[in-house]
């Protein structure tokens, strides 16, 4: 049945307005990154007076952007790998076995997911300082410490999502594998994990994106050498000048990898959310 014209018109107007709203900052980011400094310090102009790629060259020397990039990559990558691997094991245990304390475990996971980051910031800060004083292991200011703190966001979410996803993988499949002589870990890695790939990818994408975009812990828990992009971008404003064209160029450069990866994997994300969270 063809939709009535009232529906078509509402859809056209709504989607046009929404597209404008969504794209406005993207346009500003792209166009401003190609403007000379005079253009971004004066009155706003929709079109640049002269196109220049200068900001894209200068961003690397104004602040040590490459180092921040590597830091972000290492921290976000490690946090993602850790939380996905750990979540796969524990979600499998919860989804496939009955054991004492299961409910306590899932309730803990579910509830820590809703705690505000600020709640953990102060205690982790003090804990790291204390561990550093007592043992000499520098957690505070190190990449390792930051990776550990990022698990506060990604781990509970990953476990929770994967339990839902593993539940949706038919139990007969891995039971058959067990009967055929697979060990439980064999059943997990040969049957359950391959069947749950969309869920695992969704969880990995989510974990990486949160770590890549996190500001709070990064601003407190890093020093000059371990600073991530989230904090490093603030370096483009000095007391006298704000290099808006460079800020926009740098924003674009740090966004492209995540946005491209996300759009490539969005199919998995929708599938993962359907089974993991929505069911």
């Amino acid at each position: 049945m063809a939709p009535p014209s009232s529906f078509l018109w509402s859809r056209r107007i709504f989607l046009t307005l929404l597209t404008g709203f969504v794209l406005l900052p993207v346009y500003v980011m792209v166009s401003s990154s190609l403007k000379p400094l005079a253009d971004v310090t004066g009155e706003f102009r929709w079109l640049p007076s002269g196109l220049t790629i200068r900001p894209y060259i200068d961003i690397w020397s104004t602040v040590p952007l490459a180092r921040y990039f590597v830091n972000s990559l290492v921290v976000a990558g490690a946090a993602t790998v850790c939380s996905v691997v750990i979540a796969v094991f524990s979600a499998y245990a919860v989804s496939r076995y009955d054991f004492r304390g299961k409910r306590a475990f899932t309730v803990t996971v579910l509830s820590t997911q809703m705690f505000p980051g600020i709640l953990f910031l102060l205690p982790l800060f003090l804990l790291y300082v204390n561990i550093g004083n007592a043992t000499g292991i520098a957690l505070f200011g190190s990449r390792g410490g930051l990776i550990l703190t990022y698990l506060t966001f990604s781990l509970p979410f990953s476990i929770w999502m994967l339990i839902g996803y593993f539940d949706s993988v038919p139990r007969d499949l891995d039971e058959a594998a067990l009967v055929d002589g697979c060990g439980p870990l064999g059943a997990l890695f040969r049957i359950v994990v391959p069947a749950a790939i969309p869920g695992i990818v969704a969880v990995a994408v989510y974990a990486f994106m949160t770590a890549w975009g996190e500001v709070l812990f990064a601003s407190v828990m890093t020093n000059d050498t371990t600073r991530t992009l989230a904090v490093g971008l603030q370096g483009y404003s000095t007391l006298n000048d704000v290099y808006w064209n460079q800020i926009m160029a740098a924003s674009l450069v740090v966004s492209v990898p995540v946005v491209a990866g996300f759009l490539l994997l969005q199919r998995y994300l929708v599938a993962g959310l359907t089974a993991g969270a929505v069911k």
Partner: protein
Amino acid sequence: MTTTAEVEKPRADPGTGRAPRPRPGRIRRIGLPYLLLLPALVLELLVHLVPMAIGIVMSFKELTQFYIRDWGTAPWSGLDNYRVSVDFDAPVGEALLHSFLVTVGFTLLSVGLCWLIGTAAAIFMQDTFRGRGLLRALFLVPYALPVYAAVITWVFMFQHDNGLVNHVLHDQLHLTDKPSFWLIGDNSFYALLTVSVWKGWPFAFLIVMAGLQNIPGELYEAAALDGAGMWQQIRRITLPSLGPVNQVLVLVLFLWTFNDFNTPFVLFGRAAPEAADLISVHIYQASFVTWNFGTGSAMSVLLLLFLLAVTGVYLAVTSRGRRASHAR
């Protein structure tokens, strides 16, 4: 959903008449779930439970900058930190109450708008039309962009002298007498709300899209046969069928928006303007700017109690909660 041990149970059942054979690897099997959980348990302990315990202890201490190096020696202050936090006639408590109310209002508005826009977009894009795939990818861009990169662009757009917003509202449309300030003063609330909705609605869109896939097509066919128009189908089938999905979505959006730190922090810096003083930044400010970790911790614990209460009531009221707490 809880009958997970179908493989294990028959073997462990002593009622089969056979004496349970001692089997190599049997102990390992019984311990297996715990072994699988071990890494998660250790980490949960390290990043959640121990810090929470520390946080609660901290909230009963007089923890100022003098004791940071060795906070264990900070003197006990009993309930003083809590008393200060909830004394709404004194400056600290008054500011906290104000921040809490701002956060509640902001969260309700933001979640409502995100839900509305996300749901409308998902429903409008339910059936195929030309350009749908492209549009869907575009709509996910705000969600995919790193918070600081996206929000810093908004900061640029909200600039007083060289921002797009004032250029459009004042120079081009002449809607305002003079260029407004967006990142200080009362307007900052609307600036924050705009950014938050821009960033948040794609998540609602994503979840509702996923939810729409679970509605069987026969329902629409039957309704069409009965003569229901498109709008009626949306009102009578689509929206009611989304009920369970919406319950999860609204709770998650609420918690995320309520706890959001990144957006206001990038938008306003360490000290948010009064009109947009969200609770996370407020606690950060109370702890790291005025260096009173004890009061900051007490505020965190109060915030946590509030969130637990809201979530508990919400889960008790919605069916999802009943199902989730039994099944999981």
